[in-house]
């Protein structure tokens, strides 16, 4: 009888869903990363978005709002029986930041992908996650020339906080993507320890 009870209770509490947000400029490898680590074929939903018309002076003249859709890519990693980790590739454009707000709520953290040839494309994502106080790592994707990058230079170029990790990554390689995700979780843990305990207890 007791075993039955316990079984029911654990079933009710079920696995815990966790999520990581993948951000960066257009064509930087977000979808590739999600594809590389996901255990399901990566999925996509078209999310309708209601945007109040911008640049129109007299809103009374346009009572209707504009509706558009934005594709949201995601993948899934089961971690044991009790955790399910979702990866969400964010729509690249800044104007979809209000989609990000729902995505980052409760997230473990974020991976900001960088293409060294277009490093400035990643500024908006860095600014956004800093403003939301969400732990993130910067992953330099293995585009041509990325093999000789200096983490310190990327750190400076993106004006990152001292503790933000910068790692090399090949979005096409599963183990490389997993390493980046592990680095992010380590970083999120460090951050949560710093918040939770007095400074003297943190490394």
């Amino acid at each position, binding site marked *: 009888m007791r075993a039955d009870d316990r079984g029911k209770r654990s079933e009710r509490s079920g696995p815990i869903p966790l999520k990581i947000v993948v951000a960066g400029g257009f064509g930087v490898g977000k979808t590739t990363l999600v594809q590389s680590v996901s255990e399901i074929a990566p999925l996509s*939903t078209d999310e309708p978005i209601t945007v109040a018309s911008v640049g129109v002076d007299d809103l009374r003249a346009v009572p209707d709002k504009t509706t558009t859709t934005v594709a949201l890519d995601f993948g899934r990693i089961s*971690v044991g029986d009790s*955790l*399910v980790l979702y990866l969400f590739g964010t729509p690249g454009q800044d104007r979809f930041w209000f989609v990000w707000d729902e995505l980052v709520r409760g997230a473990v953290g974020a991976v900001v992908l960088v293409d060294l040839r277009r490093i400035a494309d990643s500024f908006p994502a860095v600014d956004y996650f800093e403003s939301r106080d969400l732990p993130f790592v910067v992953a330099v994707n293995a585009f041509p020339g990325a093999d000789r990058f200096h983490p310190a230079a990327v750190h400076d170029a993106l004006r990152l906080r001292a503790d933000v990790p910068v790692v090399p990554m090949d979005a096409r390689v599963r183990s490389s993507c*997993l390493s980046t995700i592990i680095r992010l979780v380590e970083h999120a843990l460090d951050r949560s320890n710093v918040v939770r305990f007095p400074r003297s207890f943190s490394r």
Partner: protein
Amino acid sequence: MESLVTVTERAGWGHDLQNEYRRIVELARRPVSLVEIGAALAVPVAVARVLVSDLVDGGFLDVHAPEPAFADGRPTTAVLTRLLEGLRAR
């Protein structure tokens, strides 16, 4: 949108559900998220959320409440530690 749902015992009783509802019940035999349901049915998450809440009201689905896993809107240290150990073991 990552909230997980699973079927209840009642869902196994072969009720006459409409197509979308029946597909969701099939998907939820294993824990499945709103966003996965949305993708499978080719509907936005907001629509999946409404269909799922109908099924929850009808007693066919349970929504998992992960509250204890989160503090101040972030995963707790204990949950992050389990996640890290699980990922390293892969």
